[in-house]
C-alpha cells in the first residue's frame, strides 16, 4: 500500500477503535458480570478469576427469590411479543392495503392520525393509556400490554407498508381487476406475495418493540403471573444487596433473542427503517 493509502486507512482505524470500544463496553460488562461469582463481580476486574456458568444455572433453576417466576416471565414476554407481532401485522397490512391500493375514502385522514400517534413520545401516551386500561378493566391482563404495543407499533408499520405498497405499479391492480379479481383475491393473490419482505420487517419490528418494552410493561402489569421478563428484571432493583451477577445473567438471557433476531433479519430491517422514518 502506498503511503497515502496507509494514512487514510490509519485514519479510519482511529475512528473505528473508539467506536468499537464505546459500543461494546457495556455489552461486555453484562457478559463479564454474568460469568462472575459474587465476589469477583464486585472486585472491579476485567476478567473474573474463576469464570463460571453457575449464575445461568441459578437462573434456569429459578433458585433465587427474584427468580421464582423466571420461566413464566419469559413465557409472558414471548407471548406478548408474538401476539403484538401478529396483531400489528394484521391490522397494519389491512390498513395499508385499504389506504394504498383501494384508495379508500378517509385514508389520508387515518394515515395522518397514525402519524400523529407515531410522533407523540410514547412516554406521554403512557399516562392516559394507563388510566384508560384501568377503565376498560384490562389492567393486569396481558392483553393490555399487547394492545398498547399494537397501538404504538401500528402507525410506523402502516407507514412503512404504505410506502412499500405505493412502489408497486398500478397496472398490476388494473390487470387483476380486468382478469376478474375481487378485492379479497387481489389482496391474497397479488398484494401479499409482493409485500413479503416488508411484512417480515414489520413483524420483526413489532415483535422486538414489545419484547424490549419496559415502561408500559411495568405500568400496566403488576400481577406476578402476568409480568414479562423486563419487569421481573426491574424488581431486582428493589433492594440494595440484590445479586447483581445473577441479574446480569438474566439480563443477558433477556437481551439475546432481540440481538439474534436483529442479526438474522438485519437486511429487512435496515431497508424498512431508512425508507420509513424520514425522507431525505
Amino acid at each position: 500500500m502506498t503511503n497515502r493509502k496507509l494514512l487514510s486507512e490509519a485514519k479510519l482505524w482511529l475512528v473505528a477503535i473508539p467506536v468499537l470500544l464505546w459500543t461494546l463496553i457495556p455489552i461486555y460488562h453484562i457478559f463479564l458480570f454474568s460469568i462472575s461469582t459474587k465476589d469477583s463481580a464486585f472486585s472491579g476486574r476485567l476478567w473474573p478469576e474463576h469464570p463460571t456458568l453457575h449464575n445461568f444455572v441459578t437462573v434456569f433453576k429459578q433458585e433465587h427469590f427474584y427468580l421464582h417466576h423466571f420461566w413464566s416471565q419469559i413465557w409472558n414476554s414471548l407471548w406478548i411479543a408474538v401476539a403484538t407481532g401478529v396483531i400489528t401485522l394484521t391490522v397494519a397490512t389491512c390498513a395499508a392495503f385499504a389506504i394504498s391500493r383501494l384508495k379508500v375514502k378517509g385514508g389520508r385522514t387515518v394515515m395522518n392520525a397514525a402519524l400523529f400517534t407515531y410522533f407523540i413520545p410514547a412516554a406521554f401516551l403512557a399516562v392516559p393509556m394507563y388510566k384508560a386500561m384501568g377503565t376498560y378493566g384490562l389492567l393486569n391482563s396481558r392483553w393490555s400490554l399487547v394492545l398498547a404495543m399494537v397501538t404504538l407499533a401500528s402507525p410506523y408499520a402502516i407507514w412503512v407498508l404504505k410506502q412499500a405498497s405505493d412502489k408497486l405499479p398500478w397496472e398490476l391492480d388494473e390487470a387483476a381487476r380486468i382478469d376478474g379479481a375481487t378485492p379479497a383475491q387481489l389482496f391474497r393473490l397479488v398484494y401479499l406475495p409482493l409485500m413479503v419482505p416488508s411484512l417480515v420487517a414489520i413483524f420483526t419490528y413489532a415483535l422486538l418493540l414489545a419484547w424490549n418494552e419496559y415502561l408500559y410493561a411495568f405500568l400496566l402489569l403488576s400481577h406476578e403471573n402476568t409480568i414479562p421478563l423486563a419487569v421481573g428484571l426491574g424488581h431486582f432493583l428493589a433492594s440494595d444487596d440484590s445479586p447483581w451477577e445473577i441479574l446480569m445473567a438474566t439480563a443477558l438471557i433477556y437481551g439475546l433473542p432481540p440481538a439474534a433476531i436483529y442479526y438474522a433479519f438485519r437486511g429487512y430491517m435496515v431497508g424498512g427503517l431508512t425508507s420509513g422514518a424520514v425522507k431525505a
Partner: protein
Amino acid sequence: MSSIAIPHTASPTPRRGLSTWQVWGLLLLAPYVLVFLVFVLYPVSYGLWLARNPESYRTLFEDPVFFTSVLNTIFFLLVAVNLKFVLALYLSGFFVHERRWIRWLSVIFIIPWAVPAIPTIFSIRFMLNPEWGVINSLLFRWFQIDGPNWLTNPQLAMAMAMLVHIWKALPFWTLILMAGRLAIPKELYEAASVDGATAWQKFKYVTWPSMRTLYITSTLLSLIWTLGDFNSVYLLTGGQPADKTHVLATLGIRYIRLDQLDHAMATIVVALPFVLPLVYFMMKRLSGDEQKTSQ
C-alpha cells in the same frame, strides 16, 4: 389549452358510490380505526379532561421538583440531541466507506439500539457504581484516582443519563443520515475533486447542502422522542438523588406512582406547547413529501 399529461401510473379514480371495492376498503381500515379510537382517542381525551383543573398546575409550579425537571429536560434536549446528531453526522460519513470490515463494524454498532434497555442501562449503572463499579475500580488501579460519585452527584448523573441516551440512540440516527449520504450521487464528489476541493470543502459544498433538510427534520423528530425518553433516566438513576435528576418523562410517571394522576397529566400538558408544533411540522413534512412523490 395546454395538453395535460395524464400519468400512466396514476391511481384509478375512486369508484362511484359504495361498490364492493369501497366496502372492502372500509372493512380493512376498520381494525386500525378501532385501535385508534379505543386506545388513542379515548385515553388522550380522557387524559386531557383529567388535566383540566387549574389547581393541578398551581401545585405543579410550586413543586421544586417540577422546576428542576423542566431545567433538566431543557438541558437534556439541547445538549444530548445536538451532540448526538453531530456524532451521527460524522459517523455517517465514516460508515459509508466501502470496506468489508466497516460493514461488519456497522452491524456491531447497531447493537445498542437493537437490544433491550434494561440489560444495557443496568450494566452502565453498575459500571458507574462509585464503590465497586468497573470504572472507579480501574481509575483507582491504574491512576490512583478516587473516581467521582457518578450517580449521586445530580449534575454528573444527568450527564451520564445523556451519555446513556446517546449510546442507545446514536446508531439509529447514524443509519438515517447514512441513507441520506448514500443518496448523494458520486459524480458530485468526483466533479468537486476535479475542481480541486478539499475534504472540508466537499463537505461544505456537496454533502451538507444535500443533507441539510434531512439533518434538520431528523433533529426535530429526535427532539420530540428524546423528550419522551423515559428509560435513560429512570433505569440509570430513577430520578434520584432526591428527585433531582427527573425529566418530564419520568416526572409524569412519578406522579402516577404517588397516585396523583391529575398532576401526571398536567406535567404532560405543560410539555405539549413544545411538542405539538413539532409534531404538526413533522406531519406536514411527511405528507408534503407524499404529494410530491405521488405526482
